[in-house]
């Protein structure tokens, strides 16, 4: 695990949600672009079919570094639920279905591996202090949405964490913001399901590092989402999950969305 002193190219993503097809497509795309390293910021499980299929891809690659998400923590410790605690009985119902399914189908050895994943990574990229976390630097399950984080709050998080660049995931919707003082906060979003914007493709973050600048762009990856939707249904998982995959609009767990992000979606 390296610091980068001259220049480099790095890929980051989060929210795999059992989607082994988009995971493979993301990693292939990143490698094609010649990245030096790949970072996965957590939440391997949930939502999609066949939980065990993501692990060979993640565990057998020496260029991928992996953080623990809250879902990984729950599955790793064999807890009863994902701890999301929705108010809407409908959201709770769907969250529990995917959690129970993932808990039951994840092999013990993978659960142990999830349990033992690290909670953050720190790097030095050309004199810039980089921090990667799942939710926020202070809490694994804190949501950092674009519309609900003031500039001064993000600056506070960076100050406290002693970082110049922060990468997080957890919300499922990516965004990036350059603060007035030049520091950078990026939510890398999720590759396991679309970002509630009507596209079926998913995004990962591609970072170009040089002594002069760190530039982040989101790269869209297409994968065989029809196949994933078919497998969701053949595994007996709810149609609503397959619908999100094929339409690009979230149909469940909408309660976590702030007003702004909610209004951007269809439901």
């Amino acid at each position, binding site marked *: 695990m390296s610091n980068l002193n001259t220049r480099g190219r790095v890929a980051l993503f989060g929210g795999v949600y059992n989607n082994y097809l988009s995971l493979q497509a993301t990693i292939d795309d990143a490698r094609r672009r010649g990245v030096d390293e790949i970072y996965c910021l957590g939440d391997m499980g949930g939502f999609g079919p066949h939980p065990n299929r993501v692990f060979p891809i993640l565990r057998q690659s020496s260029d991928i570094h992996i953080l623990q998400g809250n879902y990984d923590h729950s599955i790793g410790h064999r807890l009863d639920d994902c701890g999301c605690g929705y108010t*809407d*009985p409908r959201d709770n119902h769907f969250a529990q279905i995917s959690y129970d399914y993932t808990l039951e189908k994840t092999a013990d050895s993978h659960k142990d591996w999830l349990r033992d994943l690290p909670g953050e990574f720190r790097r030095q990229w050309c004199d810039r202090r980089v921090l990667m976390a799942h939710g926020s630097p202070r809490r694994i399950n804190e949501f950092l949405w674009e519309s609900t984080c003031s500039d001064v*709050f993000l*600056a506070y998080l960076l100050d406290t964490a002693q970082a110049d660049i922060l990468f997080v995931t957890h919300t499922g919707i990516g965004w990036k913001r350059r603060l007035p003082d030049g520091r950078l906060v990026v939510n890398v979003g999720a590759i396991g399901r679309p970002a509630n914007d009507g596209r079926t493709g998913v995004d990962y973050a591609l970072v170009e590092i040089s002594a002069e600048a760190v530039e982040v762009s989101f790269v869209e990856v297409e994968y065989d989402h029809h196949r994933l939707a078919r497998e969701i249904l053949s595994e007996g998982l709810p149609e609503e999950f397959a619908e999100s995959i094929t339409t690009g609009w979230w149909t469940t767990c909408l309660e976590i969305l702030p*007003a702004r992000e909610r*209004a951007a979606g269809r439901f």
Partner: protein
Amino acid sequence: MNKLDTRELIQRVEQRAALSSEPSAAPHLELDHLDTLWLQVTGTLCNLACLHCFISCGPKNDNHDMMSVEQVDEAIDRAVEEGVKEFYFTGGEPFMHPDIETLIERALRHGPLTVLTNGILIDEDLASWLGETFRRARYSFDVRVSLDGTTRSENDALRGRGTFEKILAGIDRLVAAGLNPVITVTTCHAELGGREGRQKFFDLLAERGIQRPRLKFLAPFKIGREERRGGGYQDYERLRKGDLDDQARQALQCSSCRMVTSEGVYPCPILIEEKDARMGDKLDDGLKAIELDHPACYTCFVEGVTCRT
């Protein structure tokens, strides 16, 4: 916090309370960081006088005055220096403030804002201004409307005669203007908090064309006017040292919020009329630890209440 932990903790509290009636010191709670600044923009002035109001708000209550634009600005500026994440406006009824539009714009310049309202004053002009503001603002802008029953009689028994229809009309106007307001329900009727009770609200709103409503359920605090309606706290309903682990501390909103009113600074939106809760004149005076010695703190802990959305 996971459910088992909470249940265990509550049991521990209750067992100990049963064993001993001796008062022991209240837990101390640090302010981790000022994530949320609450502003009591209209003080205790309200166009309703709900029977379950945990502050005794009403048309004649001037314990806390309306805040001036300068007072609001000053608190916002100080909070911005602290790295505040978000703002909440409440009252009373915020839309009674003559400068409410200015206040909303000031707050939204610095961070996301939620306005808590009873919905009665939301006419078409106001709704369309709120809709435009929502679309224009850089940060999230949320309106939260209180509704306390799925029938006229259930709601009006608490909020006053005729309010059920007016609240729903206000909600309809917000929705027509492109907002998706959060509906807040106080679970004074215990059954409203249960699964079926909650479902009824989802059904009611769906009938009115709000297919995927946003709802928040809040346990009542047995203080203010609610104390006279439903009874106050028992002696054993107090937090004591040792009740709180780190997770429980973090879950209490007062580890990361403060409330500013025209009268000064308070730990949270709940205690503004409680004697001894006032922390000083200015937000600065409130940026320090508190003692959780109020019975309402017991509700926050046991019910896991937070006034945030």
